[in-house]
């Protein structure tokens, strides 16, 4: 791999990709409004960290002013994909997508990072991936000790590629989908839904998956967890490896389309976004796949959104959960699928629960999916601001709707010595249904 690749080289590789990029990039008027909201720029303080800088780097490469270098690659990787810049932009420049395109160009020209290459190769092999993560669940306790009362664990020994002090979620000894039959039947179901578990819920946060199943059962809904479902591909897509993302997307689309569900639910903003926005985007120029993805996209809902907008849950069955809760909006919920009201409505409908809003509930927690793996120190700094915001609410716990956010919040609470828990919104609703039965 050479270190310097010129615009001419990429031009030869993919002319159409560049042509439509050039137009999109030209729309950035360099006003710098993105600086106000970029969590990475706030910590790093350099132009290359903010969207305006990243877009001009891409322009520079296209003009041939700078090479498509390792430093370009690094600059593109310093983005949590929180979409705050895009939401703020007065010119409507989709900066988050363009930065992904920048990563994509880097991957195309320079190849994928060797570690990512190995991980993605594993990810593309569903059976091997499943086997590895199940093994991690079985042998994990040898290396991880659990933090009391929480879904969180700390490494006993240093782990390669991970900060020693970092709190993670333990791998489940039995993944969620192995704990249940594929179809979970109820008497005279009012609808049939397919549950896309996502990797985090299947292999780590099985407690969230259990709550989703309990809550759907309470509402007399038949749930199927298709056994052949696989990672939605978001981490791969975000890294610029579009070809691999398409393989994963196509697999999931074909698996879910087979069942003809009334609805598809997911308990993660990013997974929902994948079904609803990314998949149709990935296959926009393949008519058969496009038709299929659009059909699925229309019936895909995030769990809180589904319960409030579609099911319209019967709130009289809910029992008291006496606790004070604040809510963190995951980026892909707030700015991806734009679902923020429904999780609040879920929380506010729980008797006894006191809801307090933090100052910036939709500011990124710093996790950025796999961003925190490669940029732990930076992601901690972003997270410390989030934790301070949570602390100032004096809430007993923080609720959210994304597994990686929950994990990063848990780590932040631990590092900042706050004895609070982080839970998925739906877990509190599950607790409320259980309390309702005891009434």
């Amino acid at each position: 791999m050479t270190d310097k690749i010129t615009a001419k080289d990429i031009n030869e590789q993919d002319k159409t990709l560049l042509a439509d990029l050039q137009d999109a990039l030209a729309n950035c008027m360099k006003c710098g409004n993105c600086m106000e909201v970029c969590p990475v720029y706030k910590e790093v303080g350099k132009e290359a960290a903010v969207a305006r800088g990243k877009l001009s780097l891409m322009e520079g490469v296209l003009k041939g002013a700078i090479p498509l270098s390792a430093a370009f690659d690094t600059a593109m990787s310093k983005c949590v994909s929180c979409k705050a810049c895009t939401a703020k932009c007065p010119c409507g420049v989709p900066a988050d997508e363009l930065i992904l395109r920048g990563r994509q160009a880097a991957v195309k020209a320079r190849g994928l990072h060797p570690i990512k290459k190995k991980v993605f190769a594993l990810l593309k092999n569903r059976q091997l991936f499943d086997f590895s993560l199940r093994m991690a669940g079985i042998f994990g306790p040898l290396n991880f000790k659990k933090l009391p009362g929480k879904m969180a664990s700390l490494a006993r020994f240093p782990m390669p590629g991970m900060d020693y002090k970092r709190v993670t979620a333990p791998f489940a000894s039995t993944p969620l989908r192995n704990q249940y039959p594929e179809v979970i039947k109820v008497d005279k179901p009012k609808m049939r839904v397919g549950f896309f578990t996502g990797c985090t819920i299947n292999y780590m946060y099985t407690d969230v998956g259990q709550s989703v199943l309990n809550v759907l059962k309470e509402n007399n809904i038949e749930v199927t967890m298709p056994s052949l479902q696989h990672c939605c591909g978001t981490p791969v897509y975000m890294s610029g490896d579009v070809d691999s993302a398409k393989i994963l997307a196509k697999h999931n689309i074909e698996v879910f389309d087979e069942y003809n569900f009334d609805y598809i639910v997911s308990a993660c903003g990013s997974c929902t976004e994948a079904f609803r926005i990314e998949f149709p985007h990935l296959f926009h120029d393949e008519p058969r796949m496009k038709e299929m993805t659009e059909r699925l996209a229309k019936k895909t809902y995030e769990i809180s959104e589904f319960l409030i907008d579609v099911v319209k849950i019967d709130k009289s069955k809910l029992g008291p959960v006496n606790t004070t809760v604040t809510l963190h909006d995951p980026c892909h919920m707030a700015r991806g699928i734009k679902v923020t009201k429904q999780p609040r409505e879920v929380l506010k409908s729980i008797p006894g629960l006191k809801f307090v809003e933090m100052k910036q509930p939709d500011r990124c927690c710093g996790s950025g999916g796999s961003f925190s793996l490669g940029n732990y120190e930076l992601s901690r700094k972003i997270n410390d601001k989030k934790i301070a915001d949570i602390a100032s609410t004096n809430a007993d716990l923080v609720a959210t709707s994304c597994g990686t956010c929950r994990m990063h919040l848990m780590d932040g609470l631990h590092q900042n010595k706050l004895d609070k828990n982080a839970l998925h919104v739906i877990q509190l609703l599950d607790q409320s249904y259980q309390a309702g039965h005891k009434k």
Partner: protein
Amino acid sequence: MEKHHINALKEIVGEENVLTSAEDLYCYSYDATPGHSHMPDAVVSPANTMETSQILKLANDNCIPVYTRGSGTNLSAGCVPTKGGIVLLMTRLNKILEVDLENLVAVAEPGVIVADLNKEIATLGLIYPPDPGTVATATLGGTVAENAGGLRGLKYGVSKHYIMGLEVVLANGDIMNTGGKNVKDVSGYDMTKLFTGSEGTLCVITKIITKLVPAPEAKKAMMAIFKDLDNAGKAVSAIIAAKIIPATLEIMDNATIRTVEDYAKVGLPLDAQAVLLIEVDGNPIVVEKEAEKVMEALKANHADFVQIAKDDAERDKLWAARRAALPALAKLRPTTYVEDATVPRNKVPDFLRAVSSIAKANNVTIGTFGHAGDGNMHPTIVCDIRQPEEMKRVYKAMDEMFSAAIELGGTLSGEHGIGLGKLPWMEQQHGPVTMNAMKSIKRALDPNLILNPGKLVGEC
């Protein structure tokens, strides 16, 4: 710049605060002005006044150009490093040093974000009035250096009306203080005012003493739509003649109205020639009375439609159209020039008419909105900088537009500054004697011409 200069800079500020990679340099080759880009040799960010002084001494001794930069949001190419050299990034000097309630004064470093200063003093019932559109990202130092204004300019003025004193580093590295906390201070030349708005050509600002004012207790917003441009102009004059100074008095021309309506669907009639948005602020009782008088003035001058906001939600609705003006125009085409020509306020209708005929004659899209109360207009040209033939027409239209403003007794800039963008018309506005005097000041304070060379007064 030579390798040993870079090493010397690293010794002053530390290795991690000198950027030299092609990628980093490219990111400091521009500001928010279209069409200007040039690579510096190094980006250096000092931590304090002493380091700033050492950097300038080094640069001065070796005749290395220095371009001071905050957030780089300016619209005049003011911090584009046109001759290479050092981009002096001041964002690490970002502390609010003092809020003095007895003197109603704040002391802050130049890298403080203006909105952060306002957040800090809001709890004390105070405001720092200059509020440029980029208030949430722009640094205090940058806004002082550019003499930035904002929506409240009519009642509250621009930056220079709030700067009481400065600590600056001169070109040779000497540290100098001007002004202070004295409300009345007539001792010597007014160096504070000279440096405020000097656009990085005379000194580097390292500390700022600002005046703070009590926050208005109440606000009231009104909107009026006019099918006749002259009636809108007369309404503006009538409001001022009624001895009311609104905090804001905004206008949008027909081209902007059409674009906004197409984009935001706020309910503006497409044949309207002007929309006025007025906001009065202050004591609640006075605000009510003033709002009534403004409404009378609007009706007396044949406004075709008037509306007054009863509460905050209605106020937001009225503001929606004005807020959409720039985004709506900017989305039309890839390149957006937000110009800043200013005329005496009674000449606003004449200027709007001139701009619209210049746009038509040159086949260029220009929407004008701006601050009718203080005459500060923002003719916004949208185009595609990659189309050479179109750009020829754009530059011709710009030329005619600034000439028109000057002929109406106006000025090249009400709040954005001159930088490089408006340099071509400086002599036309000021004449050779004034230009010579300005250049003499530049040469006296910066004999080696290292500070933002070629900007504001041009080559010396």
